[in-house]
């Protein structure tokens, strides 16, 4: 009962950073508890070929469930297979990434197993053999320190917050065919439309370029896109509530209490004054840069670095110099 299970999500057969964070966290906790890290990953035939990398981030046992019907995420199949896998083992904790898939499947698994779930946690540790869990509440205006009475403890962990540690030994990979009956599923995915220009979701991006009212007009978003493109892969556009409410940007980009809570390595707040509900949603970012005309804007109170001035002059120069810097690397 000292083993820890992680769910490693794949997309298009690839294991992403959120999955590696979940596995590495499972390995750390298992180490503290004197057990080992088990991983379950689900997908289509051939997934085992990319699952081996999970050994490098601490997985001792990697169970790869391969089935045509699991190629793409469907909550009915995924929840059942994960719950069956947890029941068949003896785990102190079960860890899933708080991605769109993780947040969708984890509550179903928790209800099937009759254990509570702590969502979107930002720290989990073992103190004297007991798990201590912290998660932001009120969108980060406060942190709740939690204890859980059940075994296993179930959590989803916020992307970009947990360290990925490299391990020397590779894990043992075993493949199984999940016992599922897709014809009984009551949910069917009819169509998947990729976002324009392969945009990345703000909650998983390692860098976010966010714009607010100071951008003055939705037509001006090209300036933010130039900066995003200059910064390279892993960068998403974000937005303040004001510009989403005004219909300038889609709600999926909104950062803050009625949008998404984010924790990227680098956050650019451009033309955002810093309303309390926006600050709550981005204050756990590692490094914050603010660009604003008003030197007294609240955003400068949480920013590590600020530039005061006209964003229409600053942004083009910033995009240009970032591009030059990246080109020189």
């Amino acid at each position, binding site marked *: 009962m000292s083993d820890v299970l992680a769910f490693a999500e794949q997309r298009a057969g690839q294991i992403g950073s959120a999955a590696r964070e979940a596995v590495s966290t499972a390995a750390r906790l298992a180490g503290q508890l004197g057990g080992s890290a088990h991983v379950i990953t689900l997908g289509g035939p051939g997934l085992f070929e990319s699952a081996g990398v999970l050994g490098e981030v601490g997985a001792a046992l990697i169970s790869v469930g391969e089935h045509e019907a699991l190629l793409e995420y469907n909550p009915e199949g995924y929840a059942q297979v994960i719950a069956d896998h947890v029941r068949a083992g003896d785990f102190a904790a079960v860890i899933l990434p708080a991605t769109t898939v993780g947040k969708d499947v984890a509550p179903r698994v928790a209800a099937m197993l009759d254990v*509570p779930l702590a969502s979107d946690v930002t720290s989990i540790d073992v103190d004297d053999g007991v798990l201590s869990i912290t998660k932001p509440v009120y*969108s980060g205006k406060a942190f709740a320190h939690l204890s859980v009475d059940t075994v296993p403890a179930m959590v989803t962990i916020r992307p970009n917050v947990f360290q990925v540690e490299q391990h020397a030994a590779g894990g043992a990979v075993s493949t199984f065919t999940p016992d599922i009956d897709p014809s009984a599923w009551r*949910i069917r995915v009819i169509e998947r439309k990729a976002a324009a220009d392969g945009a990345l979701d703000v909650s998983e991006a390692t860098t976010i370029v966010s714009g607010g009212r100071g951008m003055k007009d939705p037509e001006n978003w090209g300036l933010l896109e130039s900066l995003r493109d200059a910064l390279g892969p892993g960068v998403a556009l974000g937005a303040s509530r004001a510009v989403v409410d005004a219909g300038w940007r889609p709600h999926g980009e909104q950062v803050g209490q009625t949008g998404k809570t984010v924790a990227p390595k680098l956050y650019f707040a451009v033309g955002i004054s810093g309303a309390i509900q926006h600050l709550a949603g981005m204050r*756990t970012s590692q490094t914050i840069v603010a660009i604003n005309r008003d030197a007294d804007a609240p955003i400068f109170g949480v920013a590590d670095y600020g530039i005061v001035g006209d964003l229409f002059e600053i942004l083009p120069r910033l995009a240009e110099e970032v591009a030059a810097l990246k080109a020189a690397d």
Partner: protein
Amino acid sequence: MNVTVCVKRVPDTETRVRIDGTGIETTGVKFIVSPYDEFAVEAALRTKEAAGDGAVSLLSLGDASTAEPLRAGLAMGADSALLLTADVGLDGLATAKALANELQGSDDALILFGVKAADDDQQQVGPMVATLLNRPCVTGVASFEVQGDRAVCHREVEGGVEVIEVDLPAVLTITKGEYEPRFASLKGIMAAKRKPLEEKEATSVPERLRVDRLSEPPARAAGRIVGEGPDAVPELLRLLREEANAL
């Protein structure tokens, strides 16, 4: 078409949170229907209007003061409301069980939730209730349309949109998408006073995920203004690269 909407009373999102032990200081705090739940109420009203018949019922778990946001939902146009009185904590499964106990006998085609509550951000009670009731559930629905015995849902996901078909009866959790909530008219507010708002005690479910304490978010070290105007850009990039190691 009958629709039940589960709503939660939360502090206004503009609230400055003051910590008081395992909770927050509520004196002087304005409480509202959680914004995502308002989208769900709007979605339910539009579904009823499109069907041309049926009723929208509100269901909430909370203390007696939750009656106030339920009245607000009735003023928007919901037909009736039921408040299950209980102390609500962070254990979403305990909340889900109390709601599922009440919904067990419901034959409403749709049970709607907001995608998450604006206070604890757990994002779990909707799919948990669905699992307990053995109903299918689609989360994060930006818009949906009922077509006979199924609903076609548009769902925001990383890097795009999914179109999902779900058999009814179903549970959906609603995000902002197309459902900008309507304002209650004066007539609606007056009518709400005469609509049924029942109160009864929730079945008691023990909480197994407990808040030991709340703490302030980690303070951010005071930042600095690098400079003014575009000429500050090179210094900003130097700091981001050499000091913050962020570029």
